[in-house]
Every structure is written in C-alpha cells, then in structure tokens.
C-alpha cells in the first residue's frame, strides 16, 4: 500500500473541472502551437538564419497531428484489446500452459528496438501507414501484457480463494475482483505503451506514413534544424498531454 492511498480516500475529491485543468492546459497549448506555428517564424529564424524556409509547409501541422493521433490511437486500441485479452487468457486455467511463453516473450520483446520491428514490418506489409500501425501495435503490446500479467499475478491468492469459495463464477471473479484489483497496474502499462508509441510513431515518416515525424525526417534530410524542432515540439506536447490524462485516470493502488 502506498502511504498516501489510505488518506486519499477521505480527502474530498478534487472537483472534476479542476482535476482536468492540467491536461486541458497542455491540450490547448498543443492546438495553439499546431495552428499558429507560422507566427513563430521569427523565433525559428534565430535557429536557422540561412535557409529559405524555416516553417515546415509541405503539410499542415493540424493534419500531421491528426494522422499521428490516428495511427497511435488505432495501434494502442488494438494493443489494449489484444494485450489485456491475451494476458487474461493465459491466466485462465485453460490457457495456463502458455503463461511462461507469453510472459517470456513480453520481457524479451521489450529489449527489441522499435526500428527493428519496423524494418521487419516493411518487407512484409509494404510502405505506408499499415507497417507503422503493426510495428506500434507489436511494440505497444509488450508493456500492456507484462503489466496485466503482473497485476493479476499480484493479487493475494487468499482473496482469489475466498472469491471462489464464496461461489463466484470465473467471470464474476474476473470482472469483480481480478480486473478492479489489477486496474492500477494495467493502466500504468497502457500509459507506458501509449506514450512510448507517440514518440515511436515518428519513425513512420521513414516508411512513408505521414505524421509528426515528417518534419523531423525532412529536417534531417535537408539539414534544417527548425523543422526538427517543430516536429519534436509537437510530439513532445502530445506525449505530455496524453500522459497527464493517464495520470488522472490512474486509480490509487489497492494492494
């Protein structure tokens, strides 16, 4: 038990409107910067005084942001469904045989660089958005699987025995006991997965998926630091926004 969690229950909850103030602030900053990057031309001039164009204009930042969010969103949604579902499956009696295999794969997979996943996905799936979605899905699966396994595994076996002994069905144990008790750990896994994938998605630009990675790649190719900063800034803001949303979603640990 975290020392603060006992107290946290009795402190009056922060009103919803105030609770979401921080993520809102980051989100608004993200939108403003996407819309008004052009206004900061003078600033980027300081970075790159010699190039002809200092603001990336091949595509609108809004569109790039939208595509970025889309790719990460789709990949993460699939990763959550597959990851949580898979981890649940291998912790059921019928799937127990696969538990060692899956938990080993999940920890080995973490050491595999995302670029390598992408390099393997392209020959199989061609250029475009699909390989990056697949790469993000595979890479994002790992923390989710690992944390879901840890969360379910971390439940006191006596709580589990009592649940069964009281006459709960397997489904009732899962929904009313295992998932709620594992939720903080599972959400932490999803949080890691999504935030890492927001950064990793930028690699998609190298395989022809257009997103916030485009300005970065273009900047590297053309030696234009201003482009790189613009892409990186928006990716960073997006990651911070999403992370601060998760921070507020995360319930206090029960165990």
């Amino acid at each position, binding site marked *: *038990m975290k020392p603060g969690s*006992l107290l946290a*229950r009795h402190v009056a909850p922060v009103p919803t409107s105030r609770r979401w103030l921080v993520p809102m602030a980051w989100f608004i900053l993200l939108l403003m910067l996407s819309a008004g990057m052009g206004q900061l031309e003078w600033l980027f001039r300081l970075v790159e005084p010699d190039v002809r164009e200092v603001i990336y204009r091949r595509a609108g930042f809004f569109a790039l942001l939208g595509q970025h969010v889309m790719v990460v969103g789709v990949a993460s949604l699939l990763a959550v469904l597959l990851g949580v579902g898979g981890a649940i499956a291998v912790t059921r009696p019928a799937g127990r045989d696969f538990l060692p295999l899956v938990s080993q794969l999940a920890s080995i997979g973490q050491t595999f660089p995302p670029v390598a996943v992408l390099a393997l996905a392209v020959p199989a799936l061609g250029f475009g958005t699909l390989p990056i979605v697949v790469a993000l899905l595979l890479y994002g699966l790992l923390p989710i699987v690992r944390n879901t396994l840890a969360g379910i595994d971390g439940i*006191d076996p*006596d*709580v*589990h*025995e*009592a*649940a*069964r*002994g*009281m*006459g*709960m*069905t397997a489904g*009732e144990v899962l929904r*009313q*006991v295992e998932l*709620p*008790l594992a939720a903080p750990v599972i959400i932490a896994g999803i949080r890691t997965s999504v935030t890492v994938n927001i950064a990793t998605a930028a690699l998609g630009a190298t395989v022809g998926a257009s997103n916030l990675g485009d300005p970065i790649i273009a900047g590297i190719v053309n030696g234009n630091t201003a482009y790189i900063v613009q892409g990186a800034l928006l990716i960073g803001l997006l990651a911070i926004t999403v992370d601060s949303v998760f921070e507020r979603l995360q319930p206090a640990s*029960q*165990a």
Partner: protein
Amino acid sequence: MIELFDVTKRFGSEVAVDGISLRVETGELCALVGTSGCGKSTTLSMINRLIEHDGGEIHLDGQPVRSFDEVALRRRIGYVIQSTGLFPHWTVARNIGLVPRLLKWPKGRVRERVEELMQLLGLPVAEFADKYPRQLSGGQAQRVGVARALAADPDILLMDEPFGALDPITRETLQHELRELQARLHKTIVFVTHDMDEALALADRLVVMHQGRIVQQGKPIALLHDPVNPFVESLLGGMDRGLKEAALIQVGERMLPLGPRLLASERIAYGASLSQALSVMLWHQVDRLTVVDEEDIPIGELSLRRLLGAKAS
C-alpha cells in the same frame, strides 16, 4: 449432515488425504486437528469442491457433492479462512453482502441482512459499514469474514484456522463469540485448527488427523481419557491433559450447596472452569472456594476434594 466415505486426494504421487471416513451431524461443530501438512485444509476444501476428491464420496444431507453445480454448492456453504480473503477494494458492507448479491437478492434485503449480521458480530454499522479491510484490526477483519460467510444463512460453515492469525486475547474472545453464535444458530461446522486448546474449547466432535488419515475421533473428553496412541496423547497435551480436561468442566457442575460452615474468603464464578478454580486455590493456598453467580451472590461452594474427586466419576 456431512458425510465422507473413504475419501482420498493425491497431489501427484503424494497422498494428501488417505481414505478418510467421517460423519458430522447437523448442528454439530467438528474440529479437525493435527500437525501442519496432515491434510486438514485439503479435507475441508473437498467439501465445497475447491479441491476435487479423487476417491470415495462426500455427501451433504445424503446427496453426493458432485451432484451439485459447484458454484451453487459453494453459495450454500459458508467459508472462512485464516487470512480472511476480504476484497481489499470493497467496503465492509459490500464484502459482507457478497453472497446475497450473487444470489440476486433484492437490494433492500441485502442491506437489511448486512446490518443484521454486523450487529450480530459486534460491528457497529455506523462505524464499520464504509470502512475498507485495510482499516480494520485482525479481529475486526475476521468478524467481517465470519459475517460474510453467514450472509446467505448457509446450513454449513467451513472454517480453516479462522482465528490462527490473531493474538491470544482476541482469539479467545472470538472463540467465545463463536460458541455463543453456534448456540443460537446451530450450524453444521467443520473447523480446522492446529491449536488443541481451541479445538477442545469449541468442538462437539474432535477428529485427530495424522499424515492424511484419521487416527482418532470422538467427544473431546473421551479422547482426553483414552488416546489411542502416544501421538494423540502428546497432541492432546500429554501430562497437561488433566488440566485440559478440567478446563472443559464448569465449576457449577461440581459445586455443592452452601453448607453450615463460614463462607470461604476466595470466590469463583459459577461459569468458570475447574482449571481456573484450581489455579485460584493454588494462588491463594486455600482448599475451598465460594461459588458466586453473575451478580456475585454466593450460591455454593467448591472444595479441592470435590474438585479432584469429581474427576474420577
């Protein structure tokens, strides 16, 4: 009524329970005692099918447990374990109401039942209903555990070392409360413990297990008098058996009416045990005590001679 006929359980090559036959009458409290690992918990868990037996038969009121749906079976059997197994993310009230909710009782009836049980177990509703298990002491948590097991008013209660993790004073209080509860509710209880004093204090029937088998069973006093072998004898306390038996007999059963003599200066309660009476005599170096009732009014006397002589009967 619970009956076990030649029940066996193996874990791999190890035989955990080896041909046990046992009959627990309705309303009886049967204590399973024995050293750790002798198969007590396994025996208990086979009754509600948390563990399936591989040989023999287990019957509830004449019906094999395998003939019931296992979930339905467990909902009609109360189950209490040492570590309580309370759900940490649920309040006390919600924990207690678990089985009635699983049985789809109407909300109002669940709430009434929960409050009734909290009162029965000495847990003031206003103070405890909204607490979480981690905010409870060990004794309070186990009271909640017992309340949860009783919630749907099962006929049968299985208790696996329910008071084993409590300090001696709390343990004795809860033993006492369980006895009073049992006097009112007449459940059929199988109670696992490795604490012989607890078993002697609570059991109508005592079952001594060793290495997966029953070595002896019967009324506690009968076992104290006639242990079948040195193992049972030492488990029952060896040389302390005299005191353990004396602990089972109330002063009231042995006292004589007040005689013409002066009242003895030291007093003992009517409901105290002979071992407590003996202790008072030893302490004050007297051989006669005045027996008093709940209001401390003298109602009889107990002499050392009477205390000792009675034992032979």
